[in-house]
C-alpha cells in the first residue's frame, strides 16, 4: 500500500514516522474490512433463527495485529530489503558457478522420489507409512502429473484452459464405469481413458479454435462445468452426486492382486505379512512412473516439430501462421495431448480412491492446477514440481499440525484454515515471484551454446 502515500511527504518523514502512518492506515482499513465479519458472528439459536454473537476482543486483536505487522514491514523489513538490494547492486557481479546440487537437481530429485517410500517404511514401519506415502507422496504426485499435463496446453502452447479438470473427470469416470460394469483391467483402461480424454480434448478444441485469450478461458471454464453438471444429472449412468463406489483395484500387472480375498493376493504369493501398505507403495511407484512418462513425453515433444510449433504459437500466433504452420492442428494436438495426460491421471485417481463423485471435479481443482503451473513458472517442469510440492504439501501438512491446538486451544481446527491459507499463499507467492519459481526458460533450438532465456523476454501467448 506504499503507493497511497504522497512521495513529497515521504521525503520529509523519517522511516519510523512513515511506518506509524502506514500502520494507522492499515489498522483503519482492517477495522473497516473486519468490523462486521469478525466483530459479529451469525449463529443459529435453538429456534433456528439467526442471532448475532459479538466478538469485539477478537476484532481488536486482528486489527492490532494488522497494524503492527504493517508497522514492522514498512519500518524495518522494507528498508532492510532496500539496503540488501543496494549492497547487491554495488558488489561486483560474480558469476556463481552452479553447485553440485543445482547441476544434478533432476537426477537427485528422481533418486529421492524413488527412495522416498523405502525411507518412510524404514523410519515408521509399514503401518505408519500409509499416511505419508498416500496423503503426501501420491497426492502431490497426482497434482504434479496434472500440472505437467496442463503445462502442455498453457505453458507450451499458450492456450489458457480453465476447465482442465473436465479431462481428469473423463478419465476417472471412464475407468470407474468400464471397470465396475465390464470388469476390465486397469491396464487396458488406462490407455483407453487417455484416448477418451484426448478425444474430448479435440471436441473442446474445435469450437474454441477461433477464440482468443479470455473468451477461450470462459469457454473452457464452461466446458468443465458442463461436464460436471452432466455427471451430476445423468443419474442413470453416473449415479449422480452419490458417485460410483467399489471401483476395482489395480493389479500387479495381472500377476498378483491387492485384494485380500483373491487367491493370488500379493502377501500369499510372496509369503509375507498382510498389509494395506503394499498397495499404496505400488500406487506410489505407478503414479511416479506416470509422472516421469509425462515429463519424458513433454521434453521429447518440445524437440519435435509439433512442440516447436506450440512454442511458436505461444510467442506469436500471426508470425506462426505466416510461416506456414497450421494453427488448427497445432492447437488441437496441444489440447489432445494435455487432455490425454489428464485422462491418465483421472483413471489413476479413480483406482486409488476406489470411489468417484462429481465433488472431486469442481472448478477449484482446475484453478489449483492452473495456479501450480503459473506459480512454477510456466513451461518449466522442475518449477512446476516444486510449486506442487509447496502448495499441495503445504496444505496437507496443515492437517498434521496438532501442536497448534496447544497454542490456540482445543477448539482450534487447522483444517478449517487450509483453503484460506491456500488462497492467501497463492497471492503472496505470485506477488513475491511474478514469474514463478523457475522464471527462466531453456530454449530448444539454439546456436552453439544453450543459454537460459529470462522469462521477461518470452511471451505467455494470448490465444
Amino acid at each position: 500500500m506504499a503507493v497511497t502515500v504522497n512521495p513529497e511527504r515521504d521525503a520529509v518523514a523519517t522511516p519510523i514516522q512513515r511506518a506509524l502512518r502506514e500502520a494507522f492506515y492499515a489498522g483503519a482499513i482492517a477495522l473497516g474490512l473486519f468490523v462486521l465479519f469478525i466483530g459479529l458472528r451469525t449463529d443459529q439459536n435453538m429456534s433456528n433463527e439467526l442471532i448475532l454473537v459479538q466478538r469485539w476482543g477478537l476484532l481488536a486483536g486482528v486489527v492490532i495485529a494488522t497494524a503492527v505487522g504493517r508497522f514492522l514491514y514498512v519500518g524495518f523489513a522494507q528498508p532492510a530489503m532496500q539496503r540488501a538490494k543496494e549492497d547487491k547492486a554495488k558488489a561486483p557481479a560474480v558469476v556463481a558457478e552452479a553447485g553440485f546440487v543445482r547441476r544434478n537437481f533432476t537426477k537427485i530429485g528422481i533418486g529421492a522420489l524413488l527412495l522416498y517410500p523405502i525411507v518412510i517404511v524404514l523410519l515408521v514401519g509399514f503401518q505408519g507409512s500409509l499416511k505419508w506415502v498416500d496423503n503426501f507422496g501420491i497426492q502431490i504426485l497426482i497434482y504434479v502429473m496434472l500440472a505437467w499435463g496442463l503445462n502442455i496446453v498453457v505453458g507450451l502452447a499458450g492456450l489458457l484452459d480453465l476447465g482442465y479438470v473436465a479431462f481428469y473427470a473423463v478419465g476417472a469416470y471412464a475407468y470407474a464405469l468400464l471397470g465396475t460394469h465390464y470388469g476390465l483391467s486397469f491396464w487396458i483402461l488406462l490407455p483407453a481413458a487417455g484416448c477418451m480424454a484426448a478425444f474430448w480434448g479435440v471436441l473442446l478444441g474445435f469450437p474454441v479454435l477461433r477464440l482468443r485469450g479470455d473468451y477461450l478461458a470462459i469457454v473452457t471454464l464452461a466446458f468443465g462445468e458442463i461436464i460436471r453438471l452432466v455427471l451430476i444429472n445423468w443419474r442413470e449412468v453416473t449415479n449422480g452426486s452419490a458417485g460410483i463406489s467399489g471401483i476395482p483395484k489395480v493389479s500387479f500387472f495381472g500377476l498378483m492382486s491387492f485384494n485380500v480375498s483373491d487367491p493370488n493376493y500379493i502377501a500369499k504369493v510372496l509369503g509375507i505379512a498382510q498389509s494395506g501398505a503394499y498397495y499404496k507403495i505400488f500406487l506410489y511407484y505407478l503414479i511416479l512412473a506416470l509422472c516421469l512418462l509425462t515429463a519424458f513425453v513433454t521434453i521429447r515433444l518440445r524437440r519435435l516439430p509439433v512442440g516447436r510449433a506450440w512454442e511458436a504459437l505461444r510467442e506469436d500466433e500471426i508470425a506462426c501462421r505466416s510461416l506456414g504452420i497450421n494453427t488448427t492442428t497445432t492447437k488441437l494436438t496441444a489440447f489432445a495431448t494435455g487432455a490425454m495426460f489428464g485422462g491418465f491421471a483421472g483413471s489413476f485417481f479413480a483406482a486409488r480412491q476406489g470411489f468417484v463423485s462429481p465433488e472431486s471435479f469442481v472448478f477449484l481443482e482446475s484453478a489449483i492446477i492452473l495456479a501450480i503451473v503459473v506459480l512454477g513458472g510456466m513451461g518449466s517442469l522442475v518449477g512446476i514440481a516444486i510449486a506442487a510440492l509447496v502448495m499441495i504439501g503445504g496444505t496437507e501438512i496443515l492437517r498434521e499440525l496438532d501442536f497448534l491446538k496447544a497454542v490456540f486451544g482445543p477448539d482450534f481446527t487447522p483444517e478449517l484454515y487450509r483453503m484460506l491459507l491456500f488462497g492467501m499463499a497463492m497471492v503472496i507467492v505470485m506477488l513475491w515471484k511474478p514469474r514463478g519459481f523457475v522464471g527462466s526458460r531453456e530454449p530448444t533450438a539454439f546456436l552453439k551454446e544453450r543459454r537460459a532465456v529470462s522469462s521477461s523476454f518470452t511471451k505467455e501467448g494470448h490465444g
Partner: protein
Amino acid sequence: MQYFVQQLINGLTLGSIYGLIAIGYTMVYGIIGMINFAHGDIFMVGAFTALIVFLILSALFYSVPVVIALLIMMIVAMLLTSLYNWTIEKVAYRPLRGSFRLAPLITAIGMSIALSNFVQVTQGPRNKPIPPMVSKVYNIDGISVSLKQIIIVIVTALLLALFWYLVNKTSLGRAQRACEQDRKMAALLGVDVDRTISITFIMGASLAAVAGTLFLMYYGVVAFSDGFVPGVKAFTAAVLGGIGSLPGAVLGGLMIGFIESMWSAYFSIDYKDVAAFSILAIVLIFLPSGILGRPEVEKV
C-alpha cells in the same frame, strides 16, 4: 401464453441480478484487461454484509419500514464491499500491473478462494436464512408478480441509469473511457490512472453489493459458497455480451436470465446451467468477440 410471460418476468429478475454483477467484470476487464475472478465473491461479501446489517437492524429496533431497511442494507453493503474490492485491487492486482497476463488472474483466483474461506471461517459454513422481508404478490391476469421482483427490476433500472450517466456524462467517466482506450496516453494527458482504476473497482463492487442485497432479499438465504455460481454466470453474461462493453454486460445478463428460466420451465431444471453454457459456446463460435464486443484488432 401466461406461463410464458410468467417465465419472462422470472428471467428478467434473474437477469437483472446477473447484469449488475456482469458490469463489474466487464468494467474491470475494459480498463485493465484482467478477469477479476474474485468478483463473484465480492458479490457474496455484499450479500453477507446485507445479512449482518439486517440482523443488526432487527436486533436494535423493534420494526423498521422495509424500504428504509433495504436502503440501509444496500448503502452499508456498498460501502463495505467497495472497501474490500479497493483493498484487493491495491494489495493483489496493482503490484502485478504490467507483469505478464496470467499473474493477476492467479492472484484473483487466490483472492476468490481466500475471500470465500474467510467468510466460511468467520461466519460458519451453514446457509443463513432470514425471514422474508417482502412477501406481497400481485396477481394480474393470472400472472403473479411479486413485489420483490418489481423492486429488483426498478432498483436495477435506476442504478443502470445512474451508472450510464456517470460513465457517459461526467469527467470521471471520461477519464475511465480514456484509460480504457490507452492508459499511457491518458496518463500523459493528466488523468490519474491509478485513481481511475481504483474508482472502477469501487463502482463494480457497489453494483455487486446491490446485486448481493437484492439476491438476499429475493432468495432469503445466503451461504459462503454463494459467490461462485452467480459469479461464473455473470462472467458468462459479460463474455456473451462482449467483454468490455457495458450495454453488452446488461444484455448478456438478461439473456442468461431468460435462457435459464425458459429452459427450466420448458425443458429440465437440472440442465439449465448446461443450456446457458452451451449457448455461450455456440454464440462465441459465430461471434468470437461476443454480441456487442468489438473484434480485437491485432497490430503486428
